[in-house]
């Protein structure tokens, strides 16, 4: 009864239901569509207009970053659902019977989801880089697949997706109601945070706070995104600071969730 056994068990939990691949399929389709679509639009603009918005060298990382800028909601959902389904289906009973140390279970689950998040990162990058590079290549733009910068970006994106899955676990522990957790994920990521980031970018002092928003931290970690383009860049954290912000959000949410819902009576 240790963390390795718990990790194996949690991986089996993830892979033995349909959830992970349903989310993965939607994510890959969505990311590929966004990356391919934007690549076509921006390349088209670039080749037609006299003064392109972006240089050809800026284009590939921006397009590839759709893996995280639109894909990040999927590892969050996976993490949140992995935790909340234990509450919803009362499977915490057999789980805690097999592993009475509840901290071990949560650590195993967290590790399994960080791995799953990284795998989602790989899949999302395959989608954004596959579709993006194909379209860029068709427009005669160098997709920069051989550049070390691109591969450093790939590594940071995978880390970002792993951290987003960890945030999902923390959210699920904090909000055990599955419906509530899903609503929070969608409302925050799709509506509230974009609004806050836009609002925060208006003044200098709010921008200093806004850069700590999880989405902004994620963009800082990844290094480029459609957001930094639309909100004019502004102040950004260093990539490693972005990673620390995401990790801190995950850790705090998980710790609070552990002391509230996770240790509660299971009845």
């Amino acid at each position, binding site marked *: *009864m240790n963390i390795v056994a718990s990790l194996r068990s949690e991986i089996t*939990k993830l892979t033995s239901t349909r959830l992970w691949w349903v989310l993965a399929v939607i994510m890959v389709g969505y990311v590929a569509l966004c990356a391919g679509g934007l690549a076509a639009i921006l390349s088209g603009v670039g080749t037609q207009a006299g003064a392109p918005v972006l240089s050809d060298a800026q284009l590939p990382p921006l397009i590839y970053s759709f893996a995280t800028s639109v894909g990040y909601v999927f590892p969050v959902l996976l993490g949140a659902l992995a935790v909340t389904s234990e509450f919803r289906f009362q499977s915490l009973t057999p789980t805690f019977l*097999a592993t009475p140390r509840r901290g071990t279970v949560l650590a195993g689950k967290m590790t399994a989801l960080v791995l799953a998040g990284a795998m989602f990162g790989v899949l999302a990058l395959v989608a954004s880089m596959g579709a993006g590079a194909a379209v860029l290549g068709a427009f005669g733009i160098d997709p920069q697949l051989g550049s070390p910068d691109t591969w450093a970006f790939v590594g940071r994106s995978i880390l970002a997706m792993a951290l987003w899955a960890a945030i999902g676990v923390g959210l699920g522990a904090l909000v055990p109601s599955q419906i509530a957790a899903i609503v929070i994920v969608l409302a925050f990521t799709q509506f509230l945070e974009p609004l806050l980031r836009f609002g925060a970018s208006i003044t200098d002092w709010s921008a200093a706070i806004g850069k700590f928003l999880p989405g902004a931290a994620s963009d800082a970690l990844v290094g480029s995104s459609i957001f930094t383009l639309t909100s004019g860049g502004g102040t950004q954290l260093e990539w490693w600071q972005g990673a620390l912000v995401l990790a801190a959000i995950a850790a705090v949410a998980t710790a609070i969730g552990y002391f509230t819902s996770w240790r509660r009576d299971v009845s």
Partner: protein
Amino acid sequence: MPTGVPIEFAHVTKSFGAVDAVSDLSFTVEPGQVTGFLGPNGAGKTTSLRMLLGLVTPTSGTATFGGTTYGRLGSPLTTVGASLEAASFHPGRSARNHLAVYAQAAGLPSTAPDAALEKVGLGAYGARRVGGYSLGMRQRLGLAFALLGDPSVLVLDEPINGLDPEGIKWIRLLLRGMAAEGRTVLISSHLLSEVQQTVDDVIIISHGKLVHRGELSSLDVSDSKQVQVNADDRERLAEVIRSAGFEVANLRSGVLVENADAAAIGRLAFDAGIPLTALSQKRTGLEESFLTLVGEEGAL
């Protein structure tokens, strides 16, 4: 051969806010026999078992396996097998994967899930999603989870609920067999009749308090003797019995005679030339003494 350890409840109390679900409960369950844990709905059976299994924290007191709380058992699933009444599984997972998840967590061999499914008669249904299982199949799957680690102690909450007659007979044999091997077997039920052919010992609780503890036979209080008798001419029959000095009450289906013996009443009727249409000795049954103990209205 697995030797069970005793289950020990010592002054266990649990309050949910203002509700005292379990109050100062103390008893021991010995290995080598099947013990029934009985009480009406809401008596506190499930809460007690969940405290024993470390799922619910007692307000005070301790419930242990030979002095060790569930959380401190070195290898919980091979020591204690438990199934609780609630259906606790992800409906989208197959039965085999459901068991594999917990076998891996407990470090059991990878053959354990199939062996457990085989034991409960679900061998052919292991690949099916649990969401499509019938009530009885879910009950069996719960039992398969309990048997996963071949434990020396079994704790089952309402294991007979939802089983068909054949299933009841099967589980009865299984539990008796496991007790005979020296394991500790504790099963709960809200119906004495459901388990009376399975259990040796009973622990009865009501309103969260222990009301009776002893062998099953200790419930069979047949000292108040009643005879139920009937004849076509019921009026005359009652008259004859009453004049012989017995206390008689009229029932819809005959005459009830207090403190009598069926043979004596039969002889009385024969001597008076009354042909009887019914004659039986009524005993205060187990179920009735159970109801008397827990209060006719039950706990709710």
